[in-house]
C-alpha cells in the first residue's frame, strides 16, 4: 500500500500533466527514492494510482536506465563508460571498484553497500573520467581516489 506521504507526492506529480499517465516516470522515480527499487507489488500500486494497466507501467519501468526492477545496494555507483571517459581510463576506475568492493558492473557488493552500474556520458566530459554515486558527481577520478570517494557512502 502507498503510504500517505507517497500518495501525497504522487498527487503533486500528477498536477503537472493533463492526464495521470503523464506522471508515470515521476511516480516510478518518486517511489523508488523511498523504497530503493520497483517490485511487482509497487508496480501494481502505481498502476492503480495512475489508473492505467500494470503492463503500461512496466513497459515504462523496463525501458528507462534509472528505474530499477531489481533490488540494489544502499548506494549506487554509476561509472560513465562513454567515449571521453573511456579515453581517460574509465576501465581502470571500474577495475578498482571491483577490486575494492567485489562488485563487477551490474553487481552489488556482498555487504549490500554498493551497486555498480555503467552509465552513458554524464555530461562531465571535460573532467573525465566521471563517476556518480547516488546523486553526487565526481570528475577527474583516478583509481587512487576511489576509496576516499566511496568512504562517504556507508
Amino acid at each position: 500500500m502507498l503510504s500517505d506521504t507517497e500518495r501525497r507526492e504522487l498527487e503533486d506529480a500528477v498536477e503537472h500533466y493533463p492526464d495521470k499517465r503523464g506522471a508515470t516516470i515521476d511516480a516510478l522515480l518518486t517511489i523508488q527514492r523511498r523504497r530503493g527499487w520497483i517490485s511487482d507489488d509497487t508496480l501494481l500500486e502505481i498502476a492503480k494510482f495512475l489508473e492505467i494497466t500494470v503492463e503500461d507501467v512496466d513497459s515504462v519501468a523496463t525501458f528507462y536506465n534509472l528505474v530499477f526492477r531489481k533490488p540494489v545496494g544502499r548506494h549506487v555507483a554509476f561509472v560513465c563508460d562513454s567515449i571521453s571517459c573511456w579515453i581517460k581510463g574509465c576501465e581502470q576506475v571500474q577495475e578498482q571498484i571491483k577490486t575494492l568492493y567485489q562488485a563487477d558492473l551490474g553487481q552489488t557488493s556482498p555487504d549490500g553497500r554498493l551497486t555498480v552500474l555503467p552509465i552513458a556520458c554524464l555530461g562531465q566530459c571535460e573532467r573525465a573520467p566521471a563517476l556518480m554515486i547516488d546523486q553526487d558527481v565526481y570528475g577527474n577520478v583516478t583509481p587512487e581516489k576511489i576509496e576516499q570517494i566511496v568512504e562517504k557512502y556507508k
Partner: protein
Amino acid sequence: MERPLTQHIHSDGTTRTLREYVKTGGYRCLQRLSSGLAPKDLQRLVTDAGLRGRGGGGFLTGTKWSFVPMGADAPKPKYIVANGDEMEPGTFKDRVLMEGDSHGLVEGMILAGYAIDAEVGYIFLRGEYHLSAQRLTEAIAEAYAAGYLGKPLPGTKFRFDLHLHASAGRYICGEETALINALEGKRAVPRAKPPFPQTVGLWGKPTVVQNVETLYNIPHIVNKGSDWYHRLSRTQDGGTKIYGISGRVANPGWWELPLGTTAREVLERYAGGMADGIRFRGLLPGGISTAFMTEEHLDLPLDFSSIPPEVGRLGTATMIVLDDHTCPVGFVLNLEKFFARESCGWCTPCREGLPWVAKLLMSFEEGRATKDDLSLLEMHTKWLAPGHTFCGLAPGAMAPLQSALKYFRDDFEQHISLGRCPWSNKPARLKVLV
C-alpha cells in the same frame, strides 16, 4: 568579444539568483511584449537573426515556428518544450547553461511560448542532471513568485505555465518525437513524421521542441536585435556557440565563441593544444553522431553552413579528440557499444544491426577479424544509412564508423594482419585453421 549566454555565469559554480538575473537585464524584454511586439513580430525577429537550432540539426528556429497553427482557430493548448536530454556523449554545453544561469532558460521559454502562442511549457531534463534539476526548480519557483509565470504578463493577455520533467535516462529521449512519448509517460520510441510535432505533438496538440541552448539565445535577440546578433558570428548563421573539447588535450573545457570559429582555434588557442607527448589524429566535431575530421579539416569554420556534407556536420560543437595513444578501432567500438545499448529497439535494422556492428568491431580488437569483416562493417554503413531506419539514431551511429573506415583504414587492416590490437599488450591470438 561578446559572450551573451555565459558572461554572467559564476566561475565558482554557484547559483545565480533571480535578483542577480534581473540586475543584469534579465526578464526586461518581457515588457516589450506589452508595447506591441506581437507573436508574429517575434517570429520574424528570430528568423531575421538567423538563429539555427543548437540541438545538432541546425534547423532554422524561425522557420520551425512558422509551421505552428496560429490564430483563434488553432488547437489549444499548444506546447513549447525545452530539450534538455543532453545524453550525446562528449556533450555538456546545456548543463553549463542550466546550472550556471537557470533563469535564462525560463525567460527563453516564456518568449518562445509567446511567439507560438503556447501557454504551457515543459523542460525535459535528463534524469542524471540533479544539480540542474535543483536549480531549475528554484528558478521556476522564483519566476512564479515574481509573476513572470502563472499570471498574464503586464499589458498582454499572455499567461505562461512552466513545468520541469526529470526523465529516467535513455539517449533516445533526445529525439524530439520520442521525447514527446516520454513526456506522455510512455516508452520513448520515436513517432512517424508527418505529422510533425508543430501540428500534432504532445497529447495531440501543436508542440515545438527546442534545444536548451537555442532557447537561451532568444532573450538576447529580443533585447539587442537581429543585426547585433549577426555581428556576433563570423559566418552567415547568427550568434555565438558554446564550443567544448574533451580527450587528451592540455586544457579540456568549454568556451562561448563566435559561430564559425575553427576547430584549430578551439584546440590550439583555447584548449592549449594536445597534452604533453600526445599527438592529434582526428576529432568528432560535435558529439559521437558526427563524422571524424582530420588535420586537413581543422581550418573549416565550425557552423551549420560551412562544413561540406561529404566531410560531415557540426552536431553539438562539443568535440572529442582522438590521439595517437588511443586505438581508433577501440574508440569506434566504444561508440557503437553505446549506440547498440541505447537503441530503442523499435525498428529492426537498428535493433539488430548495431549489436552486430559492435560485435564485428570487438572481433578486430580481439584479433579475430578478417577482410570479410571489414567489408561487412562497410555494408552496415549503407544498411543503416539515412532513410533505412525509423529515426536518426542509427544513421548517426554510422557517421563516425564510416569516416573512421576512410581515415583510419590502415589501423583496421593492421588489426587483421597482426591478429591483435597494436595498442594492446595482449599477445596475438593463435589462428586456428579448420
